[in-house]
Each structure stands twice: as C-alpha cells, then as structure tokens.
C-alpha cells in the first residue's frame, strides 16, 4: 500500500484543529504581516491519524522485533517511563518558573545526577548535553578549559584509535584539536606500545571507547590511563558502550576524566527514530570545576538551579537552551530506579551473556574477528563470505526478509566487511535462537552459491533497495508542487 505525502492529499480548506475566532482588533505587527499563502496542506484529524499510522507501519522497531544494531544498544523501552514523563507535574512546567514552583523537577535532576555519579564514581556531572556527540563535546571542552586554566596552550593533539566512532574525531576538531590516529593490535585492542609512543607533550588528551567498538574490553586500560596522566594529558572515555559494564565497573577506577552517558542507550529512553537522546557527561575532580551551566544544587532551603557563575566554579559556558533534555531525565531516572543496583548489574551481565551466546552460535559459520569472550557486542567480518559473491551489505539486506533488523555494518573500520551485533539484555533466549537459526541458514545459503538471492534482497519489505547514489547526486530534499499543466493553452 502506497501512502502519499501530506502535500499530495491535503487541501488548504481542510483543518484538523478547531480554534476559537481571534478578536478583530488592530494588529501591532508594524506592517510585518505575512502576505500570500504559505503553501501548507490541510488535513482533517481522521486523515492525519491514518496517514501517520500507516507511515509507522512501514518502520521496524524494537517493539516489533530483534534489533541487534551494534553500538546502538537497542533495548526495551519501558512504558512506565513514558507514563511518568507525561505526568502534568513534569510535562507542563515552564523552564523559567520560579524555583519554588519546580522543586520536584529540580529534585529529579538532582537525583539522576546522584545516580550517575554513584554508578561511575565520578566527581561531577553535566546533565545538559543533548545527545552522545554533544556529551563528547562537553567532555572535550572541559579538557580544553582545564588546559587553558593551567595556561597550557601547547597541547592541541588528541589521540583517537582507528576503531573509534566518527563522532570522536569530529568532536575533537570542534574543540580546536588535531586528531592523531592510533592503531589497534591483533587482539582488537589499542596497541599499548604505539599508544605510548604517540603520547608526547603536544597531546591534550585521548578519546577511547571502552568496551571498544570491536566489542572487547581494553585489557590495558589501567596502563593506558596511567600513561595519559603521566604525559599530562586527559582521558576521555566514549560511553557509548557503558551498557556492558554498568553496575560492575566504576569509570573513575579506570582513570577516566570525562565520559558521556547516552541515556537513550544504557538507560533505555527510546531512540525515537533519531532522538531526542541525552548525553550527560561525568567529570573527574580535575575537570569538575569546568562543568557547563546550568546545574542543580541542594542546600537547606531546597533545590536551586545554578544558571550563572557562582562560587569557585569556572564553567566553560552553556551548551544548550534551557536546562537540558528534562523529559529524557525523567525516563532515565524511572528506568534506573526500576532496575536499581542489583538490576543494572544483572543487566550488564545478561547483555554480555547474550552477546557471547551469539558469538558462540554464529561463530560456527561466520568468522569472528577476534577471540572471545566479547563484551556486549559480537564482531564478525566477511571472511566467511569470501568467494560467494555476497557482500556484508547483501547479507544484511537478506536478514530484513527474515524479519530481523540487521547488525551494524562496515563498522568498526578496522575489520573488513564488519558485522557488529549487539543483542542487549532484553532479548530472550528464544529470540536469540530464532535469529541465529535464520543467520546460519543464510550463511549456508550464501556458501551454497545462491548469490542472486542476496544481491536482490530484500524482497518483502515496504521498499526494496533504494538508490542512494541518485539521492546524493540529485538531491530532492523537499516536496515541490508539480509544475502546472498547460491545459489552458
């Protein structure tokens, strides 16, 4: 079933809301009233509900099936969190109400902060970053502010492993740093020797992901952080993979100076088809004074929202409008309280168990890139497809027809034709087995030489493969009214 665009089914006379008639007073627009129609389509409420219902039916989601997208932590999103975020006492608050009228909201922010600090052992947390990449920026700006504060302006290099997410180098660049790549070793970890060799007095810091993007714990992490600090640099940890170790490893114990936490990954707020997320960033004592505004403090009189420099704090600035992703904070707090200390510990254990189960079962036919145990992600490469004429992409598209969302593909870049699978702890064993059965059957099919089956997959999805080259070469980024037909002539 095709679903036309709203522009193709609407009519300017239709309207899906009823509004009272405006008064008819002289306007105060100073002559700046809009002239001419905007061109927006109008639809009645029934049409709007059906349109977006139908669009939704063209989506795959964690609610509808297994979604092992590596490095994305697509876990179950509890509905309790949605319900609580919608309580009028949270949803209907203006950000600039007097503090006395929002004590409950400030308590939410304070409590969430306390949990994040308790789970990481860090000194301070900046809640306001809007997503993971924004949290990275927060951490790296704090590092830059600390360097500036100590008058150290010679350090402008940041070490980033080749296996890092693209956001890491992009973020470093935004802070005026140059990126120096560091290679991995044969075990899928940072090469300690190469790392140490790269650490000179031009290095401001290192951005590391741990567990890393190969799904492995950096076994030398303590030596790495010691070397970083010995070199006078700071250690930024990308927290994208925090779900593997939450409730087990305190980030402070790894010698970390800053780490962002994706509330929409580890703490289960929904990803919403691309946000909103939130990227609170925890900071070590060395970086804590530079945490950005605003933040919440509690004193005898109650909670206060600090929006301007006060006391000994030396905030590097403000990252976002208002007070951060408050609606996301409520959801994350509800999740964390529901799971608790024991639940988070069990969750990270089950996440790692599920990933190792995939590694064990799929390792029979696919080619694991490194030796296990893995952490919460299992990484394979495309060696098992060698000579079949089937690529990682083809293989992934065939999975769609089996009713599964594919794993992350071609990332990390350090292995060929990467397939990075993250099952999370909220998948059942039945679900994993069904997935493994399907993938093993596909692998057998590929090896049996049926390449055309793969290269023309998927067949049963709302669309078949889309022409991305055409989209990029001749970008059509908005609807335009069709050229008028010249019937009148």
């Amino acid at each position, binding site marked *: 079933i095709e679903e036309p665009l709203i522009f193709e089914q609407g009519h300017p006379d239709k309207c899906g809301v009823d509004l009272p008639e405006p008064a008819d007073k002289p306007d105060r627009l100073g002559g700046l009233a809009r002239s001419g129609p905007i061109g927006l389509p109008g639809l009645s409420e029934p049409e709007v509900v059906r349109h977006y219902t139908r669009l939704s039916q*063209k989506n795959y989601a964690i609610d509808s099936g297994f979604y092992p997208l590596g490095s994305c932590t697509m876990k179950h999103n509890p509905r309790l969190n949605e319900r609580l975020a919608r309580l009028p006492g949270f949803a209907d608050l203006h950000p600039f109400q007097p503090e006395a009228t929002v004590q409950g909201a400030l308590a939410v922010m304070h409590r969430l902060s306390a949990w994040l600090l308790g789970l990481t052992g860090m000194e301070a947390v900046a809640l306001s970053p809007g997503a993971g990449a*924004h949290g990275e920026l927060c951490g790296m700006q704090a590092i830059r502010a600390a360097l500036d504060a100590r008058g150290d302006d010679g350090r402008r290099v940041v070490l980033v492993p080749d296996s890092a997410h693209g956001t890491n180098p992009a973020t470093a660049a935004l802070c005026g740093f140059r990126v120096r790549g560091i290679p991995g070793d044969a075990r899928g970890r940072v090469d300690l020797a190469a790392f140490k060799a790269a650490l000179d007095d031009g290095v401001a810091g290192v951005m590391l992901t741990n567990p890393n993007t190969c799904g492995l714990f950096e076994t030398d992490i303590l030596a790495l952080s010691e070397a970083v600090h010995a070199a006078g640099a700071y250690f930024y940890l990308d927290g994208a993979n925090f779900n593997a170790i939450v409730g087990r490893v305190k980030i402070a114990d790894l010698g970390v100076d800053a780490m962002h936490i994706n509330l929409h990954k580890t703490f289960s707020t929904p990803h919403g088809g691309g946000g909103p997320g939130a990227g609170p960033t925890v900071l070590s004592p060395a970086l804590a004074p530079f945490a950005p505004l605003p933040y919440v403090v509690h004193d005898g009189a109650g909670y206060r929202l600090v929006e301007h420099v006060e006391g000994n704090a030396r905030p590097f600035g403000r990252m976002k409008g208002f007070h951060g992703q408050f609606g996301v904070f409520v959801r994350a707090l509800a999740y964390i309280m529901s799971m608790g200390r024991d639940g988070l510990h069990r969750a990270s254990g089950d996440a790692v168990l599920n990933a190792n189960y995939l590694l064990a079962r799929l390792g029979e036919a696919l080619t694991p890139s490194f030796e296990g145990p893995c952490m919460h992600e299992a990484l394979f490469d495309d060696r098992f497809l060698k000579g079949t004429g089937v690529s990682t992409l083809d293989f992934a598209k065939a999975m769609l027809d089996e009713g599964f969302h594919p794993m992350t593909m071609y990332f990390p870049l350090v292995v060929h034709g990467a397939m990075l699978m993250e099952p999370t702890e909220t998948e059942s064993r039945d679900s994993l087995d069904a997935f493994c059965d399907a993938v093993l059957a596909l692998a057998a099919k590929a090896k049996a030489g049926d390449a055309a089956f793969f290269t023309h997959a998927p067949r049963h999805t709302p669309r078949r493969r889309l*022409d991305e080259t055409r989209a990029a070469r001749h970008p059509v980024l908005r609807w335009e009214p069709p050229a008028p037909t010249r019937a009148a002539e």
Partner: protein
Amino acid sequence: MRYLPLTDDDRRAMLARIGAASVDDLFRDVPPAALSDATPGGGFDALPDHATEMAVERDLAALAARNTTAGSVPSFLGAGAYRHHVPAAVDHLIQRGEFLTAYTPYQPEVSQGTLQYLYEFQTQVALITGMEVANASMYDAATGVAEAAAMACRVTRRKRVLLSGRLHPHYRAATETFLRYTDIETEALDPDPMAVEDLIGRVNPGTACVVVQNPDFFGRLSDLAALADACHAEGALLIVAVAEPVSLGLVTPPGAMGADIVVAEGHAIGSPLNFGGPGVGLFATRKKFVRHMPGRLAGETVDEDGRRGWVLTLSTREQHIRREKATSNICTNSGLIALAWTIHMTLLGEAGFTKLARLNHMKAVELVEHLETVPNLKVVTPTFFNEVLVRLPGHGAAAIVETLAEKGLLAGVPLSRFYPTYPELADGLLVCATETTESADMAALAAALTEALR
C-alpha cells in the same frame, strides 16, 4: 526483574554453550582492580536495589506533585518557551512503538515511515521559514544557532560572527560556548531593550554572519530586509533565529526578508513545555549552501522496482563518513520531537496555522490593553507577536514575580534571570499570551500587578 527475559535455566544453558563457567567469567578481560562489584564491601553499596513499578510510580508522582503546573494557574511565561494546546492525536501517534522505539533510519527499506515524515518535516520547515531547504532537525534552537554560525564561517570562509544583543541569551551563550575553542571570533552586543541596534554599521568584509532574532528576545518585530542587504553587500550571511515558531503563521518569514539561514525552536508546536526540553531545532537555508549544512537530511529516490522512496542522503557531510572534517558532530538529533511537530503542523494546515498565529497575536494585543491599565507599568515593546517587555520602574521584577507566584499566578519572566549583571534591566519583565490565555487570566494579572506595584 520485569525487563529481563533470561531465566536462570537460560543462563546456565547459554553459559554451557559458550563454554564459560559463569557470567562473571565473561568479564575476565576486565582488570580485577576495576571490578567494583567484586570488591568486598562493594563499590555500589550505597545505591538502592530495584524497585517495583508501583513504587517508582508513587515516588516520582510525588515529585511531580511538588511542582506547580503552568496549566493550573494563569501563566504568562515565554522567553523562548511557549505554552500551546497540543491536540491529543499528536501524543497518541508519536507513542506508536514503530516510531518511538526505532533507531535512526539507517536501513531505509524498513524505515520508510521515519524517512517520509522527515521529508514532510523538511518541507514544512522550508515553507514556513520561506527558505529553500531544511534539515531533519537539531537538538534545539540554541545549538542550531551555534551550528548556523559555524556553517556561515564555512560558507564564507570568514571567521567573525556578530551576535545581536537582542538574541535569546541562551542562544548567545550556546553559540559563544560552541565557538569558544575554534578559530572563530564572536562579538555580541549588549542587551538594550530601549535602543535600536546598529548592526548594519558593524558589518564589514571580515564578517561571516550576523545573527538576529525576530521577534527578538524583548518581543519586538523588526523588518530585516535592510540588514540582509547590508550583509549581502559585504559578503556576509544573515542568520535569523525564531523562538516562537507560531509567529511564522502571521509574520513575514525570514526568508522573505533575505535571511540566509533560519533557525527556529520547534518545541512550541507539538510538544508540552517539559521544563524546557527536549526541544527541536528547525534549520533551514538556501539550496546552494546545503552541502555546508549540519545534521541529517532525508531525500527522495527510487527503489530497485522503481518505486518512490526516501533515504538519508548527503551523509558525506557527516561525522560517520567524514570524521574530523565533518560539518558537525551531530548524530542523534530530535526525530521524535520533529515528528510531533510535523503531526501538529499537519493537523493545523494552512488554515489552522495562520489562524492560530492570528489568535496568539490578538491575545497579546488584548493582554497589552490590560497591562496598560496598570499604573506604574510601561509596555516598552512597540511591535510584537505574542510577547512584550514591560518595565516596572522602581521594582525588581524578580521579586514581583515571586510575590505573585505565591498568590498562584505565574506573571512572566524577569530579565534579571538572564542578565544578573545588568542592574538597569532589573525592572524588566517579559509577559506573553497564547491561545491558552483567557481574558479572565489577563484581568487577574493586571489586578495583581496593580496591587503589587502600589
């Protein structure tokens, strides 16, 4: 534990299949010193254990009850966050699991729902701002303005950004912070609600862009055409921020006044106030700048069978391809809030959107009539959409606001909240009306202010 499907039997069987002795055994690559949970006395002992749904609900509902909701009292707060009525259909639809629990649409074959609404969103944003193209959203307007300034520097290959003193102080702060460690210089004018800024006089051949807001932070509507011309004459770009997107239903859009980049806060359409977040940044520009634009873009194409479909496109601008040379580091943005925005906009349509805007303006006109009856109060915004600045000579606006809050009235936003170091602004109060403001509320405000200012 209700969110965890594995049983102990499952765990045993799976460990056997893996060949591990225990779950802890799978963590053997973690240096023992780093395993807090294994530490006797435990590293996490201070943290509470899991709680039942009933307990969490009771606990957080009690916190929610400690807040005064904006809808429960007459409320005149704006300053960048506007309270509008959102039809119930919006929240119903965005809660559909297929939207709510999907990831960024990396697999377009099974993400056409997300991609199509992003395309609809981009088109609606472009239409109301009067621009040619729009992206699939930023976190919010503050970060959007910051990214726009950086983008203008890329487009012009210049390094100087000029910020109006009438820009929302959060947009200004976020922009200054964002650019702080780059090689871009920012110059921001002082906030002066009484004077007319001479931005044109400050534009010069080194200027990458000028950033203004319309209506500005103090509520004033201005014609930006001359400023746009001046910018273009010097090779600079004009960036226009819009804090109240509803204004675009009634006011000449920035695009029609010559803006090169328009950034707006979309929060006011489709979403509740949410204490200020999450919002959604609308970001629109000219077609020729599109490859310099930050953020995701949905574009039209065809599938293997020739059927129309949508994909994320121009991703060579983005961090996951271009890494340190990316136009931005943004990745996750505000998809679901963009969806709420586009559903609300679709419900409104041309007729509803323009009527809603007119209704807001007329409410503000009525509010000003009420305020003008208050002795000792001056409405200082000459032309406005739905918000004005009033001055309360001889009074601190913050204290007045607190007094009125105790009486169950949220009177407005005092300027001192943003400008604590500008004592001359301490008597300034921003007050705003929307379609949710009743005449009786306005009369109550006027009466309460009359009494408080006596």
